[in-house]
């Protein structure tokens, strides 16, 4: 478990933690990048939306090696995030009709095998993401 102040400056440190854990769990370089990107998007959303700005809370990141991949649990104590309230982006829509932003949750679901949001007791969110090893890479 590692606790970070929820700032953009700490995104690189959080990403390094999860990228290192992904490699140690036996994920490929490409899958480790996917994990890093999904976590970066998740933590950016926590800063921007759950806390409403930088430096207004903390992010707790736990990495667990699984037999077939990696589990990451990210905790925050900001506003609970209900993913069902977010419409997925239409990536086939012409650019001039697409609102800016809104790719974070979409990237998380596309890059990870499981993405589960749970409310924490009191306030905040527990986000669990799992990335399984690509079949060709499994021993």
């Amino acid at each position: 478990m590692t606790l970070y102040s929820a700032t953009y400056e700490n995104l690189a440190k959080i990403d390094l933690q999860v990228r290192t854990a992904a490699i140690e769990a036996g994920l490929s370089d490409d899958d480790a990048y996917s994990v890093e990107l999904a976590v970066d998007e998740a933590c950016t959303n926590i800063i921007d939306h759950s806390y409403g700005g930088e430096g207004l809370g903390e992010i707790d990141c736990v990495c667990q090696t699984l037999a077939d991949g990696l589990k990451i649990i990210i905790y925050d104590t900001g506003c609970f995030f209900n993913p069902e309230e977010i419409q997925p982006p239409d990536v086939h829509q012409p650019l001039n009709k697409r609102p800016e932003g809104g790719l974070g949750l979409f990237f998380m679901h596309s890059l990870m095998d499981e993405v589960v949001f749970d409310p924490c007791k009191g306030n905040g969110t527990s986000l669990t993401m799992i990335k399984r090893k690509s079949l060709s890479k499994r021993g």
Partner: protein
Amino acid sequence: MEISQKQYKHCSLVKITGRVDSLTAPAVSETLKSLMEFGKYKIVIDCTGLEFISSAGLWVLVNTQKACKRYNRGEVILAAVADRIRASLDLAGFIPYFKIIDDPTEAVGSF
């Protein structure tokens, strides 16, 4: 993240190395905006050393492309894009909006 630029006769070459995330994306945006403020709308972005880019960074590239292509005054060409970053562009639906050339020198010469 480091960003540098070089002017050629027909275009500007912007080299981005390191990470582009919510911390560093604004600096990339400012550099590209200042080029456009000086009337430079033909831009090659050399991604040789680009290690990571989040959706915040992808939107900076897209917004710059939209501005450069307005009134047919230019465009952004991406050069030396790593496969994993190309995959992110594709996931976001942005590939159709960019010419991607492997060699930065060739990209500069294409203008």
